[in-house]
């Protein structure tokens, strides 16, 4: 008893150091898991750690990462966006429609250039994102329910536009005056696939927004305590609306990338993508309660999910086991998140003595 009390009042350097290490490891757990997975898969599958596969892997990760990074702001405000998968499907269908049917104008179909198609498709997604934001901020619908509703609305709209069918031959638009929609998601720039460039660009924008702008601080403030944020003069409704718009734009980008890669738009594209995105956000350490988390975390979370998926396919693990393992990883990540929060408060006395602290 006496010695325990002594160690609290005067922690030895070793105790402080190990307490810090434990916290450091816990905080960097997503990175550790990622490194561990890469080492494991490289060891087990000789083809895993090759430039070729890593390029393919990053291209796959880009899809989840774009959705996850886009959704992070929503989750940071304490909301959730279940509609991103459907929005991705809708944007692909919108692009497919514009590329194959054109815009009827004066009885003649005009085929807009690819850049316009991309912009219009993103605009369609922004409408859905705006609806999400409106429902949450003005109509007072809980984010889970509001976006569950738009999940069905967007998917149904995509099916209605295409009548359940696939828009084929999107790559080959020369006959219709278009120029190479397939390049959008398939081309390589400096040996890096275009989706990866888009992921990096969106990540950079989101990171700057979160860390360097009032918008980012407001998002954290709303998630931390919405009432306090409102009293502090933050325009809660406006900021929240913007987070849903950002999420839907990212989802729209994903739909366009997929339509371009497949050179076809299928209305069912993106089913259950929202779950992968939420998993990536949570793996990255963002709290579903809002107020705590980071953009970088979501990117790493997306990489964990992507590496896990590609690695398990390369190892030839049965699909059923793949699902179990993915579920275990997600649940463990959240459990460790709780552990971190508890340990952090318990270890605080040990760290308070040290000059630097570990609060950051």
């Amino acid at each position, binding site marked *: 008893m006496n010695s325990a009390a002594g160690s609290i009042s005067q922690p030895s350097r070793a105790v402080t150091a190990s307490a810090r290490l434990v916290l450091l490891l816990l905080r960097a757990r997503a990175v550790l898991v990622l490194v561990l997975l890469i080492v494991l898969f490289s060891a087990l599958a000789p083809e895993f750690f090759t430039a070729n596969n890593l390029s393919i892997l990053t291209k796959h990760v880009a899809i989840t990462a774009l959705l996850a990074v886009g959704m992070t702001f929503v989750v940071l405000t304490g909301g959730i966006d279940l509609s991103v998968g459907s929005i991705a499907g809708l944007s692909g269908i919108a692009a497919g429609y514009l590329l194959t049917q054109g815009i009827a104008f004066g009885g003649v179909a005009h085929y807009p250039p690819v850049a316009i198609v991309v912009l219009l498709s993103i605009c369609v997604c922004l409408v859905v994102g705006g609806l999400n934001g409106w429902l949450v901020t003005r109509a007072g619908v809980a984010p889970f329910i509001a976006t569950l509703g738009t999940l069905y609305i967007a998917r149904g709209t995509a099916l209605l536009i295409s009548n359940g069918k696939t828009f084929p031959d999107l790559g080959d638009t020369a006959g219709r005056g278009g120029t190479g929609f397939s390049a959008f998601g398939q081309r390589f720039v400096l040996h890096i696939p275009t989706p990866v460039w888009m992921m990096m660009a969106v990540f950079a924008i989101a990171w700057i927004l979160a860390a360097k702008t009032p918008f980012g601080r407001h998002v954290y403030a709303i998630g931390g305590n919405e009432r306090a944020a409102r009293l502090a003069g933050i325009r809660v409704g406006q900021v929240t609306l913007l987070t849903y718009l950002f999420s839907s734009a990212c989802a729209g980008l994903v739909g366009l990338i997929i339509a371009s890669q497949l050179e076809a738009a299928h209305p069912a594209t993106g089913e259950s993508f929202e779950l992968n995105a939420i998993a990536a956000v949570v793996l990255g350490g963002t709290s579903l309660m809002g107020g705590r988390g980071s953009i970088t975390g979501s990117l790493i979370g997306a990489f964990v999910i992507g590496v896990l998926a*590609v690695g398990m396919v390369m190892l030839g693990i049965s699909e059923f086991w793949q699902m179990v393992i993915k579920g275990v990883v997600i649940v463990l990540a959240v459990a460790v998140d709780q552990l971190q929060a508890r340990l952090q408060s318990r270890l605080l006395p040990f760290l308070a003595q040290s000059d630097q602290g570990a609060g950051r």
Partner: protein
Amino acid sequence: MKRSLAFVGCAMLGATLCACAGCHRADHRARLIAIIVPSEDNPYFKAEADAAAARAQSLGYRVRVDAHDDDAYRQDNLVDAAFASNAAAIILDNAGSEASIAAVRRATRAGIAVFLIDREIDATGIAKAQIISDNDQGARLVAAAFARAMGAKGDYAELLGRESDTNAQIRTHGFHAVLDQFPHLKLVAAQSANWSQQEAFQKTETMLEARADIAGIIAGNDTMALGAAAAVKSAGRTHIVITGFDGSPDAINAIHRGELQATALQPAVLISRLAVDEADHYLKTGSTGEPEKQIIPCDLVTKNNADDYQNFEKIR
């Protein structure tokens, strides 16, 4: 702390080296054939995948089986993974006749031979082979058996597959090519049940409620036929002729019990074996020795010959 980190680093390195020592002999491994099917929890696709895997292994290949869940994007990722694993060939039951073209083309350009089974794509000259069962011929066989069992007269209902699916259209077309020639057979209800047993159950219950005079139900696949049979049973109706399509083990058992009258068996196992054999031939000689499109006829299964079939294969 530094020492601990160094220790963790060493442990990781050690683990890597140990694991690598284990897989070193893998450098001279057999060539890989990737088998990609729609799902592994459906008996038809499972039989198809298992047959292809068994044949490829017996020919000395490594195999990997993956499922794309009818999601063209997931299929795209699996094709990428096959490419990254240096697969020599892909046996593919694709995720959509139009949405799969880009993936097949990309694999072919990367030097992987793609062999399509069970479903075609809307393009030729890309895949090395497209081996499918003859849905039209199978549908005509079943329809003829249906008409015989109905005594060439009476009201009947039809359960269609998913409307966007080519096979659903080919089958209903084949059914009507035969049934419409009988003037006393009358179609009184036609509904899509999206290939689903549960949906077929509900639709059949409603149809039986609305039209008590229905004497037969012709279904676009076995799961819908089984759903219809369950609905007929729960409605307490007897002597309703029900036929399916696919030749699933469940349907064949139901034929034994007299709940279904007939089904067309798609030779999934045969098709898988043909595809692997042609892949093997292609990898060894540079040609499959066969035309790209190969259409394999279906077999009619009734109570008389139900013992001859098992798990999508003729065993006698």
